[in-house]
């Protein structure tokens, strides 16, 4: 099937389809970029589709947004929350993954433990975030970056646990056995032998966790009010009393979307595997 020669007609259909798909996927990004470099009055005018030709581009909105303290604060918060959550979940997730790959648990089988971690993935976030909000507000811990790190790390934890335990299982155990013969203990075998071999996968999983935590909106909306507000919540600030400001939306949408999408491209070899929790290897 792969080798079947394509007829000319089929080739044309495929190329038309490909071009349509690319336009369809890329158009929203292009539209955000256009709005971000338009003068406010141009955003509501029809036919302003090509910079320089149909409107005069300006960087004013970018400059004014980047000079706002609350936006820079939000960028910093988003960075701290997403990298913090990804790091915490990858650390504890990798440890659990190694345990599931290398030890046999008796009372509860390894498969059941894996499924238990997997079931985390089906839990609707709204079910947990409201009681979590009550608990946090009763101890006066809302609007804190660390509470968002805690929640995000929990919801991305299935990724490192399941994907990395698969990767550890694909390593031949003989190398760790050799380390034991040389007098290493379990911890040394883990950190010096097994861990370095899964680094590419580890980095990719970290990126996936980081991107999901960066994009998370519900927890941030519920748990932040001022100091810990990250980017996804700050976009809403573009909706002033005067209505939605399209040029502001353009800038903030791009500032929010670009970091996770660009990072995800670095992990693209592992995306299919990551998003299906290891069930399909891309």
């Amino acid at each position, binding site marked *: *099937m792969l080798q079947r020669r394509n007829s000319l007609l089929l080739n044309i259909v*495929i190329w038309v389809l490909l071009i349509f798909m690319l336009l369809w996927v890329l158009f929203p990004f292009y539209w955000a970029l256009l709005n971000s470099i338009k003068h406010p009055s141009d955003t509501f005018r029809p036919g302003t589709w090509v910079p320089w030709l149909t409107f005069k581009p300006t960087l004013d909105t970018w400059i004014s947004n980047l000079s706002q303290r609350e936006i820079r604060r939000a960028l910093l918060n988003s960075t701290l929350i997403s990298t913090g959550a990804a790091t915490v979940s990858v650390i504890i997730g990798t440890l659990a993954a190694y345990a599931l790959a290398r030890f046999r648990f008796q009372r509860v089988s390894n498969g059941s433990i894996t499924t238990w971690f997997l079931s985390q993935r089906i839990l609707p*976030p709204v079910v947990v975030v*409201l009681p*979590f909000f009550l608990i946090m507000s009763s101890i006066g811990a809302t609007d804190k970056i660390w509470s968002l790190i805690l929640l995000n790390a929990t919801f991305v934890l299935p990724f490192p646990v399941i994907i990395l335990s698969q990767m550890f299982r694909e390593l031949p155990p003989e190398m760790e056995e050799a380390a034991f013969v040389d007098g290493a203990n379990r911890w040394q075998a883990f950190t010096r032998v097994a861990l370095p071999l899964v680094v590419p996968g580890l980095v990719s999983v970290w990126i996936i966790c980081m991107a999901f935590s960066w994009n998370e*909106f519900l927890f941030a909306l519920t748990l932040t009010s001022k100091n810990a507000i990250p980017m996804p919540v700050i976009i809403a600030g573009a909706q002033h009393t005067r209505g939605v400001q399209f040029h502001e939306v353009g800038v903030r949408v791009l500032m929010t979307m670009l970091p996770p999408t660009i990072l995800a491209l670095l992990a693209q070899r592992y995306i299919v595997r990551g998003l*299906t929790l290891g069930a*399909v290897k891309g």
Partner: protein
Amino acid sequence: MSQSVGLSEAPAVREIPVRAQDRSRWAFLLPAVFWVLALTIFPLLYALYSSLFSYRFGRRNAFVGLDNYARLFTDENLHNGLWVTFIFVISTVAVEMVLGFSLALLLNREIRGRNVLRAIMILPLFATPVALGYLGITIFYETNGPINVLIRSLGGSSIPWLSNPFWARVAIILVDIWQWTPFVFLVSLAGLQGLPVDLYEAAAVDGAGGWQLFRRITLPLMMPTLWLILLFRLVDAFKVFDIPMSLTLGGPGRATEVYSMFQYRTGMRFFDHGYAAAQGFLLLIIVSVIVSLLFGRIRSLYEEA
């Protein structure tokens, strides 16, 4: 290389002959276990407890037993939320599955620039959903937004995207389709490329045509992957919150007020935390039922293979 589909652990645990460090396995496993217990099970128990109380001004007021659960049956706004969510889930998942799988079938061949295509298809998956919602406001803009300008230039009339209940639902569905069709496409394509080539060659020698190849080989072998994609899409679609919250704010009226959004408002706007907790458990039960139905389906298909 045959297909690599398997939900839990495909290869058996290859245990290293354990020496003195046997107990260290708990040190590896327990941090994650305690983490999940503390941050999901404990809030769930807390929710279970608070669902038995009425709340006033956000403070626990009186023990009401199962009253909050009884309200689930009579609350029309809640039923509206369920209905809107069902419409959303069924339309998005159906369109994404058909479109994504068809595209994968068509493009499962030698084409130049496959890596570029994959890279571009990854972009929507990691685009911030709430940002897409706000971007949607500018794209679905009724007077001079790009879609309506295009429709008008083709001789049609403007679509009242965000002010008409029907079209507002279409709008949130379209954003989700834009974001997640690439997921179905990428996973299907990965699955298709894992299919054994020799099977097709043997069938072609026997004179099987394209349709027969698809019907007898591709589809049966792809079924586990397709069920798996369906499961992931269903679970995620039921959680939908960000896009209607940003694009339509649940409106016009309650036309796009999906379940998660309704529950969020019950808790965070009306501070009716007991009732919101009861609503959460209803959602949890619905999603769990769907998962257990499909999970069995996937598992049985594995055993047949």
